[in-house]
């Protein structure tokens, strides 16, 4: 098998050049999708027969929750690549994904609490889904704090990679918490194996919002990664030429 693409992918300069071409597309498509999905969900979807209009929070709560977990999985993948192949770009990705993951994890928890008040009559309960999601937030914060505490770049990369991998155990717990334990939180709305139980007028804006949020994540991740590349490669000739 030809592995040149893999080494090219690990080259910060190559990534910087190619991602500059992706960025405008990502920016336009993600923002258009998010605006269309949220306007559709807020103003055009019918209300829920049980929850009334408060269910419209789903169009941000579900994409944010999906992202909070997916970003963690991507960080764990980057951590594995960092440990196995010692690719610098993977550690940079691990570093820049953490604050984005934190922001979407907080968004998921906050919108969940706001939704919980009219639906369950409480902002917060210590049940399995909510607690495991809170642990995910602490894991994110722990990884960021760990990097800040270690000054050598290589040592910080290794420590953060190990912590990210250990924390993966929490992801299946979040996923199956609604099946394993009795919980106030409703079961999965979208399943790959079954036909969705939602009406298509609600399902379409939700799917659009999910795709839009994922593309938005990719876009801001690429933005941050390019800055991290400039910062870490500042001694190289091409970065010096770039900034001067």
């Amino acid at each position, binding site marked *: 098998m030809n592995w040149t693409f893999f080494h090219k992918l690990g080259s910060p300069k190559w990534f910087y050049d190619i991602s500059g071409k992706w960025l405008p597309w990502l920016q336009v498509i993600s923002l258009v999708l998010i605006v269309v999905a949220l306007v559709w969900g807020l*103003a055009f979807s019918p209300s829920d027969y049980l929850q*009334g209009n408060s269910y*419209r929070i789903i169009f*941000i709560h579900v994409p944010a929750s999906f992202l909070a977990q997916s970003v963690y999985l991507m960080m764990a993948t980057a951590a594995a690549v960092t440990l196995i192949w010692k690719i610098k770009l993977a550690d940079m990705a691990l570093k820049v994904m953490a604050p984005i993951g934190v922001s979407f994890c907080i*968004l998921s928890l906050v*919108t969940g609490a706001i939704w919980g008040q009219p639906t369950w009559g409480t902002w917060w309960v210590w049940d399995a889904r909510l607690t495991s999601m809170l642990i995910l937030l602490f894991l994110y914060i722990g990884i960021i704090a760990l990097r800040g505490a270690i000054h050598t770049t290589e040592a910080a990369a290794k420590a953060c990679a190990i912590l990210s991998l250990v924390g993966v155990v929490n992801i299946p717990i979040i996923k199956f918490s609604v099946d394993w334990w009795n919980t106030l939180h409703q079961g999965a709305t979208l399943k790959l194996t079954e036909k969705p139980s939602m009406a298509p007028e609600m399902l379409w804006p939700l799917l659009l919002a999910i795709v839009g949020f994922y593309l938005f994540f990719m876009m801001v991740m690429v*933005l*941050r990664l390019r*800055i991290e590349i400039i*910062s870490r490669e500042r001694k190289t000739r091409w970065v010096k030429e770039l900034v001067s």
Partner: protein
Amino acid sequence: MYFDSWSGFLAMGGHGFYVWSAYAFALAVLAYNLISPFMAKRRVIEKVRRQERLMHRKVVVDDFRVTTGSSDNSGNRSANPTLQKHRPERQEAGPESAKRSPQ
């Protein structure tokens, strides 16, 4: 449009506070993610430029004092076309920037 009127849209059937505060928070999170990279970019580029300037000055000072041992700069010195331009200001720039080493 699902709602009959603008006020009905804002009221959200009595759930207006919950729906709109959730969406406002979402907007804030998206805005934070969008804006913070651009602020970080300015900071990082400024840092790299400052480091570059310090490197250039250090080369001039080293040259002036004919110091040896700064092996990391020796490659730069011969390849640096702007060396001549820096020479006149070495008097005032010299002692101060010699103490400050680039990060």
